[in-house]
C-alpha cells in the first residue's frame, strides 16, 4: 500500500472531507431533472417528422425462413419502408462482438435473420411507418413462411452428440469454445485429500430488466454524411464503432448520444440488431426513425444472463485446509454471440477469497435455441460464489467444523496480499477475515451456534448462512484485454474545460444510467481543483462532445476515471495558479484555489475570481508571455491492475421443516470498497445490487418449455422482480482498505451486492435443516425445492454425469480474463 496517494477518508482518524469533495455525501447532480420529469431518455427524443419502426420476430426457437412476402404490408397506408433479410445482408456487415470468447469463431450475426433464426424473438423483418400503431398493423400483414427445425434449450443437452447444431456453417457442435485456466496439480491433490466435496450447481437464467427498455432514434443527413444515433446505451463510443463497422461507414460519420439511461446493469452494452435496422431505415428514407422496445420484445430480444451448470469440487485435508478447487462449467450463450456474450468471471474468481494453490477452471461456452446471453451485473461472480460457498458449508458439516472458522482459516491473509490466484487474478489488498468476523458478530453467530437447533414457537427452525466473496472491479490492463481479443481498453478519458462564468465543464463518454457518475466526477474535480462542487457541470454520453473512452461497465468507471479526472484537474489548477499569479503579481506557490476565487494563502484580500482567470485564458488576453491561451485538458488513465472488492454476507433465515417455506429474517453485508468518494452513493449501489441478487436467488427465473422451445414467462406479470414489499431487512457495514492499484485507493462498487445473496440464504437454510441432511444446489431457492430436498433427505447424486476436466496439461498460471 505504499503507492497510496491519500489516506482512507472513511477512516475515522482521517481528515474531514472538504465540502463537495471526495468523501462528502453531496446532493446528486442528476436528481433535479429526473425528479421534475425533465430527464431526457431516448424515447423523449422526438425529432420533427420522425417515423416509427416495428419488428417482426421469429416465433419459433429454431426455424428456416422459407419465404417472406411483404407486399400487403408495403401497401398499407402510412408504411414507408420494409427491410428483409437479403436487404440487410446486402447493406451491412454482421454485428461485431466487443468481448469475444477466446478461441470462438465469429458467428454471422446479421440484424435480420438470414435463412435460419436460432431463437424466439430474433428479428426477421422490420417495418417503418408514420406511427408505431401503423407499423405494428403492417407486421400483421406480413406473410412469412417458416419451417420449424429441431431445437435444444437445455445447456447440457445442447452439448450432447446428436443435438441439433445451431451454427453448422462455422461449428460442428454447439460448443463455441472451451477456455481453461489453472495452476498446480489439482487432480493429484484431489487424490491425496482426506475429503473431497463436490456437486453440480444449476444457476438460473435471469435478466437485468432495466425499467427503461432499449430504444434508438436514428437520423441521417446524407449531404453531411452524418448519422446521429440517440440510444439507451452504457457505451456510446463503443456503439459508434460497432455501428460504423456494420453500416460500412467511417467512425467519423457516426455520432452516438446517450442522454439519460434508465438503467443498464450490463444489458445495454453494445449494438443490438434493432440499432442497425433503425439506422438502415433512416439512411434509406432520409427521415428520422425511432424504435422503442416494448416489454414483450425486451424479454425475448434483449439479453438474458447467468444460466450455467457448474461441476465444482473442493479437496481438503482432515483439518479443513483447502488443497485444491476445480470448476468445470457450461455457460449458456443462447442463439447468438451478443456483444459481451456469456460471463467470463466465474473462472477469474473461482476460489473466491480463499487461498488455493492448486486450481483449475474450465468454461464451456454453449449455444442453445434461446435468447442470447449478455453481460449482467456480477458477470459470472454470483454464479461461482453459489457453488464454492455452498461447498464450504458442506465441508464444514462433513468435518464438524465451525463454518466461520473454516472460512477464516482458508482465507488469503491481509499480509499475504497482493497474491495471485490459480487463474491468474492478482488480489490487490484487503482484510477478508475482518469482514467475515464482523458479519458473524453482527448476525449473532456465536449465540446461534450455542443455542442449538430448537424450533421457534411457530415450529420454524432458524439457520445462519454466510457467503464470503471477492469482486473483480475494472480490468487487469489493456494488455490482458488484448490477449482476450477485447475491443476496448482498460482506461478512461475525460476533457475538462473552463468557461467564462468561472465554472468547469467536464466532458465524458460515460453515460448516465444511475451510477451517479456526474456527481462523483464533479466531487473528484472539486476536491483536486478546489473549485465549488456546484460550479462543475458534467456533460455525459455524447461522442460528438467527449474524448474517446471505454464506457460504464465492469464496475470500472470510477476506478479508471478518477485518475483521468485527477490529472486533468491538476493540469488546469496549475495553469490557473500561474495565470492568477501573473494577474495578482504574486508567486503561484503562495496562491490557492478555493470556491470561486484564487487567493493568497497568507492574505485573503489578495484574490482574483476564477471567472476572470478563465476568461483571460479563453480570450488569450492578459496572460503571461509564453503561456498558451486556452484552459482545457484531455487526460487518460489506466489503472495498473484490477482492484478486488471483497466482503462477507450473513443471512438469518427461518424455515418451516414441514413445508419448506422460509423467510430471510435479517441480512447483513460487510463490504469493502476501498476509499469511498460518496458513502450515500456507494450504499445505494450496494443495496440496489443486493435487490437484484435477491431477485435472482429467490424469485427470478426465465423458463423455457423444452418441448416448444418457447419462453414461458416473458412478461412483467410473470417474471417476479422484487418489489418494495419483498426484500428482507438489510444491514450494511463497511471496512475501508484502500486499493494500491487505483487513484485515491478506490475499488469499484457496482456489482458486489449481486454476488452473495444466493449462497448466504441457501447456506442459512441448509444450516437450519442440517438435522434433515438437506443440501441445495439449484437457483432460485424456492419453498418447493426445499420441500423436495426434505422429502428426499439428501440431494446428492440426483444429476446424471458430471462435467469432467478436459485432460491435458494445465495452462501455466492462468491468464485472467
Amino acid at each position: 500500500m505504499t503507492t497510496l496517494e491519500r489516506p482512507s477518508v472513511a477512516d475515522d482518524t482521517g481528515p474531514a472531507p472538504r465540502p463537495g469533495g471526495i468523501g462528502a455525501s453531496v446532493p446528486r447532480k442528476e436528481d433535479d431533472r429526473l425528479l421534475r420529469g425533465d430527464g431526457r431518455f431516448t424515447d423523449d427524443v422526438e425529432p420533427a417528422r420522425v417515423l416509427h419502426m416495428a419488428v417482426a420476430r421469429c416465433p419459433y426457437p429454431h426455424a428456416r425462413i422459407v419465404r417472406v412476402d411483404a407486399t400487403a404490408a408495403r401497401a398499407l397506408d402510412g408504411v414507408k419502408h420494409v427491410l428483409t433479410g437479403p436487404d440487410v445482408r446486402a447493406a451491412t456487415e454482421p454485428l461485431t462482438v466487443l468481448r469475444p470468447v477466446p478461441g470462438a469463431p465469429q458467428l454471422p450475426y446479421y440484424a435480420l435473420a438470414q435463412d435460419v433464426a436460432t431463437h424466439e424473438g430474433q428479428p426477421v423483418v422490420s417495418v417503418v411507418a408514420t406511427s408505431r400503431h401503423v407499423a405494428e398493423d403492417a407486421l400483421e400483414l406480413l406473410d412469412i413462411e417458416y419451417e420449424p427445425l429441431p431445437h435444444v434449450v437445455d445447456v447440457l443437452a445442447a452439448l450432447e452428440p446428436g443435438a441439433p447444431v445451431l451454427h453448422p456453417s462455422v461449428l460442428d457442435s454447439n460448443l463455441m469454445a472451451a477456455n481453461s485456466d489453472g495452476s498446480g496439480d489439482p487432480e493429484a491433490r484431489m487424490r491425496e485429500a482426506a475429503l473431497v466435496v463436490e456437486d453440480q450447481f444449476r444457476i438460473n437464467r435471469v435478466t437485468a430488466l432495466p425499467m427503461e427498455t432499449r430504444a434508438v432514434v436514428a437520423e441521417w443527413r446524407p449531404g453531411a454524411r452524418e448519422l446521429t444515433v440517440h440510444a439507451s446505451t452504457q457505451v456510446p463510443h463503443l456503439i459508434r464503432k460497432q455501428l460504423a463497422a456494420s453500416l460500412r461507414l467511417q467512425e467519423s460519420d457516426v455520432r452516438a448520444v446517450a442522454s439519460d439511461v434508465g438503467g443498464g446493469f450490463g444489458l445495454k452494452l453494445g449494438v443490438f440488431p434493432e440499432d442497425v435496422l433503425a439506422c438502415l431505415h433512416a439512411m434509406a428514407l432520409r427521415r428520422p426513425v425511432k424504435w422503442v422496445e416494448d416489454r414483450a420484445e425486451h424479454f425475448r430480444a434483449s439479453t438474458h444472463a447467468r444460466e450455467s451448470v457448474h461441476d465444482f469440487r473442493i479437496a481438503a485435508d482432515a483439518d479443513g485446509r483447502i488443497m485444491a478447487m476445480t470448476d468445470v462449467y457450461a455457460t449458456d450463450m443462447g442463439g447468438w454471440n451478443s456483444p459481451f456474450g456469456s460471463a467470463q468471471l466465474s473462472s477469474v474468481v473461482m476460489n473466491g477469497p480463499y487461498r488455493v494453490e492448486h486450481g483449475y477452471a474450465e468454461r464451456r461456452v454453449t449455444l442453445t435455441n434461446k435468447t442470447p446471453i449478455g453481460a449482467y451485473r456480477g458477470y459470472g461472480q454470483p454464479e461461482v460464489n453459489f457453488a464454492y460457498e455452498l461447498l464450504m458449508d458442506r465441508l464444514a458439516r462433513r468435518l464438524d467444523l465451525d463454518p466461520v472458522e473454516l472460512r477464516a482459516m482458508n482465507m488469503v491473509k491481509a499480509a499475504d496480499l497482493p497474491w495471485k490466484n490459480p487463474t491468474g487474478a492478482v488480489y490487490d489488498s484487503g482484510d477478508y477475515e475482518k469482514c467475515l468476523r464482523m458479519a458473524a458478530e453482527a448476525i449473532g453467530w456465536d449465540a446461534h451456534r450455542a443455542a442449538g437447533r430448537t424450533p421457534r414457537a411457530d415450529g420454524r427452525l432458524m439457520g445462519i448462512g454466510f457467503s464470503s466473496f471477492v469482486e473483480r472491479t475494472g480490468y487487469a490492463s489493456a494488455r490482458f484485454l488484448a490477449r482476450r481479443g477485447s475491443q476496448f481498453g482498460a482506461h478512461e478519458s475525460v476533457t475538462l474545460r473552463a468557461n467564462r462564468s468561472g465554472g468547469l465543464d467536464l466532458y465524458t463518454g460515460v453515460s448516465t444510467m444511475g451510477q451517479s457518475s456526474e456527481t462523483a466526477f464533479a466531487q473528484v474535480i472539486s476536491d483536486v481543483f478546489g473549485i465549488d462542487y456546484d460550479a462543475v457541470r458534467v456533460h455525459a454520453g455524447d461522442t460528438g462532445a467527449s474524448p474517446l473512452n471505454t464506457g460504464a461497465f465492469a464496475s470500472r468507471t470510477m476506478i479508471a476515471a478518477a485518475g483521468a479526472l485527477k490529472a486533468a484537474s491538476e493540469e488546469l489548477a496549475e495553469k490557473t495558479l500561474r495565470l492568477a499569479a501573473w494577474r495578482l503579481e504574486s508567486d503561484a506557490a503562495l496562491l490557492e484555489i478555493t470556491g470561486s476565487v484564487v487567493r493568497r494563502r497568507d492574505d485573503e484580500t489578495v484574490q482574483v475570481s476564477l471567472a476572470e482567470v478563465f476568461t483571460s485564458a479563453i480570450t488569450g488576453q492578459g496572460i503571461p508571455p509564453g503561456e498558451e491561451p486556452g484552459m482545457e485538458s484531455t487526460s487518460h488513465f489506466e489503472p495498473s491492475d484490477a482492484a478486488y472488492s471483497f466482503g462477507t454476507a450473513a443471512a438469518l433465515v427461518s424455515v418451516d421443516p414441514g413445508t419448506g417455506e422460509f423467510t430471510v429474517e435479517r441480512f447483513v453485508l460487510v463490504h469493502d470498497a476501498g476509499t469511498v468518494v460518496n458513502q450515500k452513493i456507494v450504499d445505494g449501489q450496494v443495496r440496489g445490487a443486493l435487490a437484484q441478487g435477491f431477485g435472482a436467488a429467490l424469485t427470478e427465473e426465465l423458463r423455457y418449455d423444452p418441448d416448444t422451445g418457447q419462453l414461458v414467462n416473458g412478461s412483467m406479470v410473470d417474471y417476479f422482480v422484487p418489489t418494495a414489499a419483498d426484500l428482507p431487512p438489510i444491514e450494511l457495514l463497511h471496512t475501508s482498505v484502500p486499493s494500491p492499484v487505483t487513484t485515491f485507493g478506490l475499488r469499484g462498487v457496482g456489482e458486489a451486492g449481486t454476488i452473495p445473496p444466493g449462497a448466504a440464504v441457501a447456506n442459512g437454510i441448509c444450516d437450519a435443516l442440517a438435522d434433515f441432511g438437506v443440501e441445495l444446489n439449484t437457483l432460485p431457492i424456492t419453498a418447493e425445492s426445499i420441500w423436495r430436498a426434505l422429502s428426499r433427505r439428501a440431494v446428492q447424486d440426483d444429476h446424471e454425469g458430471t462435467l469432467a476436466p478436459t485432460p491435458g496439461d494445465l495452462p501455466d498460471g492462468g491468464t485472467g480474463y
Partner: protein
Amino acid sequence: MTGLAPDVQREELVETTTTVNGEPITVAVPPRLHVADFLRQHLGLTGTHVGCEQGACGMCTVVVDGEAVKSCLMFAVQLDGRNVQTVESLAEDDQLNPLQQAFKDEHALQCGFCSPGFLMTATALANQGGCPSREEIREEIAGVLCRCTGYENIVTAIERWFAESPQRAVDDDATGLTTPTGPSTTGRRR
C-alpha cells in the same frame, strides 16, 4: 404521433375535454391511444414513463382525480371530464416540492426512470389522509418497480415526507377532490 403527423393514417378521432396539471384542454384523440402516450406524445409531458404497457411496472403512474392510476391501462378518451396530475406539476416556483426534496435528500433515485411513478403514487397516497407506517408505505408503493435502488431510500423519503407534514391530506386545487376511498390502484399481483 398518431393524429399529429401530416401524413398519418386517418383514424376517427374523439373529442375529449380534460384538465392536465391545472390546465383545461380539449383535444381530439384516437380511440386506441392510452393516457401515457397521450401525455407524452400529444402534450410533450415526457416525465411520465412507459415500462411495460401491461399495468405491471408502475412507471406510467399519474394521479387522476386524486388517485394513482397506471396510465398505460387507461385510454385518453376516458379522461373526459377528469383531472390529471403528472410529475411535471410537482415543483413549486421552480423548486423541488417537499416530496421531491425528500427523494433527493435520501438518495431515493439512481437512474430516475421510476421516480415519477413513485412520486405520483406517494402524492396520491397523501390524499388518503393519515400517516402510513413504513410497512404500509412498502405495500402501497409495491405497484411501482425500481431496479436500481433496492427501495429502502424510497421508503425512507416517503416516510420522512409524511412525518414532516402530517396535515397534508386535503388541499386540492390541483386534483379538485378530497379523500378518495376504495382499494389502492397500485397494489400488485402476487
